[in-house]
């Protein structure tokens, strides 16, 4: 019997070994030998021969971001007084006084002028950099990619990974933390006329799509009209802002396109410097307007796909036919999709990737980012303030929150600084305007508003008094029937709600949390099926048309509180038409005061992303906008000996 058994056991072992062989039979599949392993080891601390002397060396600069060159954004948690707007930074079109009619000489930003007059190297040198050509950039993205059409989603992962293949009409300076300093892209120059209601874009000549077809103004018109008036079956999340900004698009000639707005519109030019609004090829998209771009990545961008993307790897190579012969600096980009933060951290530490992601490290907690940066002197941790808010909303249509006294009582009891101090998501305290941009409310004004006073004892006393007054008229509020809805699968949402829950106990308000899946939770915010809700909102522009238009205006895109304030709506329309920046800002501040004191939509804080990248990565500044054109990586370069070409 044992004799037979010997062969049977041997057969079993052989079967297992055969299975081993089968494992390999799966073939090479989608994942080839990692280029990352063959990438030369960057010399993080080596002094670059061509580096500008002003650049701090890695040794002298342990883990903090280098001092910003243009507009310094204070780190999160710092005092929230706004910086004085700096010359040149910010949205030109909103600040420049525009004559009532006639063609105005365009007030180009300093970065735009540098580019127009001296090319990309002039821009880099003005920012203390001497770019080198060459090298493969190892990047990582944190989300699975469902499809490739960025115009049909607000999914950040889709934007970031497809961005290198595209251009927009305009872009923002790769050195501007606010992503507001407009520079040319496909539009090399532009003229503003009709008091800011018309803009004519003069397009670059000799531009071709990655498939060789010529680019023209028809592509621009097609793109804008497709976003604005999407064909049946197409999802266009940004059609609202396009409809309110762009009235008509007219092709003047193959290299000139004219856009008109219904009256002065401060967003008419900046709209096209937002990364989302890349230009797509008409000849491909018109074949199947809804689906064609879902599965194809063909742009005019500085990089084109080297191979069809897989679920884990996107490889780009430099576009040899790129219309600006001086760009891009990199030869290749390789995007690995790594979803787990710990795996991201390991890849970053071992230079399998060079940053935690191009828009700021959405997947990293501040603690993880700091601990990773602390391990390697060449790693730089840059806390990036962003135009994304954590909000706490009270349903203004349902009692007791239909009474302003209850809302103000709740608002005054919530110490905003506690959210960043005790919750998992760092951020900057501010009101309805981004606290680090040109529209930020002055600190002394902010401190006079409900929920922002410096004396917490006085605020608590005020809250209790307001509640007592309400309850004396309407009877006691049964807080046992009121919950704070939060998203259990959003890492910071329910922990932040716990902080609010504890803060409210100081005014004897004891409410339970109601954790929900984010999709159900957001659905409740949209439909008004909630009393108190804690979640967040991502915005595209540091401009009141976007921030207030989304958050506070009646029927705005994120008008979750359902509180209509006619006075605010009126001021909103006024500021839209106001051409003088200072006057417009006065109106905006007035709006901010009204919205904050109305206390239905509370801004808990403005997020901080936690960007970590190697110090040899240059020309790639973390920005406040999560949709910065920096994701296109046109101006990114690596300060490495391997990337040693100083010209093409």
């Amino acid at each position, binding site marked *: 019997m*044992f004799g037979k058994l010997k062969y049977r056991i041997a057969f079993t072992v052989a079967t297992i070994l055969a299975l081993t062989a089968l494992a390999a039979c799966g073939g090479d*599949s989608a994942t080839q030998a990692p280029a990352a392993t063959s990438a030369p080891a960057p010399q993080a601390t080596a002094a670059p021969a061509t580096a500008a002397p002003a650049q701090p060396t890695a040794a002298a600069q342990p883990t903090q971001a280098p001092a910003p060159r243009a507009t310094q954004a204070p780190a999160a948690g710092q005092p929230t007084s706004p910086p004085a707007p700096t010359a040149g930074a910010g949205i030109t079109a909103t600040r420049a006084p525009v004559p009532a009619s006639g063609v105005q000489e365009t007030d180009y930003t300093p970065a735009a002028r540098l580019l127009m007059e001296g090319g990309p190297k002039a821009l880099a040198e003005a920012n203390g950099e001497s770019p080198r050509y060459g090298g493969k950039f190892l990047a*990582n993205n944190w989300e699975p990619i*469902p499809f490739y059409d960025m115009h049909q989603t607000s999914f950040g992962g889709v934007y970031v990974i497809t961005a290198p293949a595209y251009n927009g009409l305009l872009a923002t300076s790769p050195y501007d933390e606010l992503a507001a300093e407009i520079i040319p892209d496909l539009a090399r120059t532009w003229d503003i006329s009709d008091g800011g209601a018309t803009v004519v874009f003069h397009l670059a000549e000799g531009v071709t799509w990655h498939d060789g077809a010529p680019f023209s103004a028809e592509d621009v018109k097609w793109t804008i009209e497709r976003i604005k008036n999407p064909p049946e079956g197409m999802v266009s999340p940004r059609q609202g802002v396009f409809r309110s900004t762009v009235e008509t698009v007219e092709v003047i000639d193959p290299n000139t396109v004219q856009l008109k707005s219904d009256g002065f519109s401060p967003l008419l030019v900046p709209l096209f410097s937002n990364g989302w609004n890349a230009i797509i090829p008409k000849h491909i998209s018109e074949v199947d307007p809804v689906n064609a771009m879902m599965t194809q990545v063909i742009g005019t961008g500085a990089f084109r796909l080297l191979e069809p993307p897989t679920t884990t790897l996107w490889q780009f190579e430099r576009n040899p036919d790129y219309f600006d012969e001086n760009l891009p600096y990199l030869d290749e980009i390789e995007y690995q999709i790594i979803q787990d933060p710990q795996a991201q951290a390991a*890849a970053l*530490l071992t230079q*399998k990737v060079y940053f935690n992601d191009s828009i700021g490290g959405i997947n990293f907690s501040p603690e993880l980012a700091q601990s990773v940066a602390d391990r390697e002197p060449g790693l730089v941790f840059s806390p990036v303030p962003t135009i994304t808010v954590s909000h706490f909303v009270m349903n203004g249509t349902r009692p007791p929150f239909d009474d302003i006294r209850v809302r103000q009582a709740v608002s005054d009891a919530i110490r905003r600084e506690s959210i960043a101090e005790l919750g998992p998501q760092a951020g900057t305290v501010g009101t309805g305007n981004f606290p680090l941009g040109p529209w930020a409310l002055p600190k002394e004004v902010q401190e006079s508003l409900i929920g922002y006073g410096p004396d917490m004892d006085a605020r608590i006393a005020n809250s209790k008094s307001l509640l007592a007054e309400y309850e004396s008229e309407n009877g006691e509020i049964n807080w046992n029937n009121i919950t704070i809805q939060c998203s259990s699968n959003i890492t910071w949402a329910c922990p932040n709600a716990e902080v609010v829950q504890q803060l409210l106990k100081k005014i004897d308000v004891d409410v339970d949390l109601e954790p929900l899946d984010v999709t159900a939770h957001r659905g409740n915010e949209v439909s008004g099926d909630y009393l108190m809700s804690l979640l967040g909102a991502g915005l595209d522009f540091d401009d009141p048309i976007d921030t207030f238009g989304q958050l506070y205006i009646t029927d705005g895109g994120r008008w979750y509180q359902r509180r209509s304030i006619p006075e605010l709506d009126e001021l909103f329309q006024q500021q839209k038409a106001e051409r003088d920046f200072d006057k417009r800002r006065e109106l905006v501040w007035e709006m901010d005061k009204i919205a904050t004191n109305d206390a239905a939509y509370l801004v808990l804080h403005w997020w901080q992303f936690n960007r970590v990248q190697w110090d040899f990565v240059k020309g790639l500044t973390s920005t406040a906008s999560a949709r910065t054109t920096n994701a296109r990586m046109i101006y990114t370069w690596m300060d490495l000996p391997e990337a040693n070409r100083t010209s093409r």
Partner: protein
Amino acid sequence: MKQYIARRLLMAVPTLIGVSLIIFVIMAIMPGDVALARLGEAANPETLQMVRDQLGLNDPWYQRYGRWVKDMITLGDLGESVFRQGVSVASLIEEHFPVTLNLAVYTMIVAILLGVPLGTLSAVRHNSWIDYFLRVFSIVGLSVPVFWLGIMIILAQVTWFGWAPAVQWVSPFDDFWDNMKRMFWPAITLGYFQVAFIARMTRSSLLDILYEDYMRTARAKGLRERTVTIRHGLRNAVIPVITVGALQLIALLGGVVVTERVFNLPGWGTLLVSGVFNRDYALVQTLVFIFAAVVVVGNLITDMFYAWLDPRIRYQ
């Protein structure tokens, strides 16, 4: 035997139908939907509704179930992923399968190459310090969660050696050495539990056998202790180990999900987790159904192996 196999295969049909219904119900009652996952959190109600309509998510449940089953049966590509536009479920499963198989096989090799010898050593050195050490080693292996061990291994490598495995998986046929570098630690992570389990099984099974009458007879014949242990003891002891080991191979699927996630391996586990997060019903339902089918078929094969290895066992 043939009747037994036929009966088991017939029984598998209602089992798999039941499994498919359970998977479908779980995915259907799960809050959230793929429309939001595709559009991003800033999607507005109108666009959400449009995508839901396009994907048929507003249809009655029986229509959605019928459509999924029909796609699985009639379409060679198992239908289309509802999250990834224009990509078939079959192509996703095929793309990720080699990685999971690779990990599972390496893990089993680690488990058998280490588990059986360690269990044997523990049994023959019964109540010695070696036995105590190996018992602690086994208990730790059975107790430590796979995800924790994986994270600790990665952190240790990065902290002490400044090394981490390559991000992308490479087929062993393309580059065996690179493949080993990528898969060694995941296999160790996932295999530790299996090593511990098999060592424990081998030890207890061998201890039962070492004091049987026929073992005493073999010693009385003058055979060396090593010969007695290996040729007479281990051969008998290993039968339950192999059958249980085969079942463990099936159980590996659970650990594979966690290990792939921690080590960023693009296998079925990562695909499944990603599918659940993105509410990719078609993918998750099909993948879980395949897992269930593997378990059903694996159980049957194990039973057949058991009868084949031990002729005393006969199935009615």
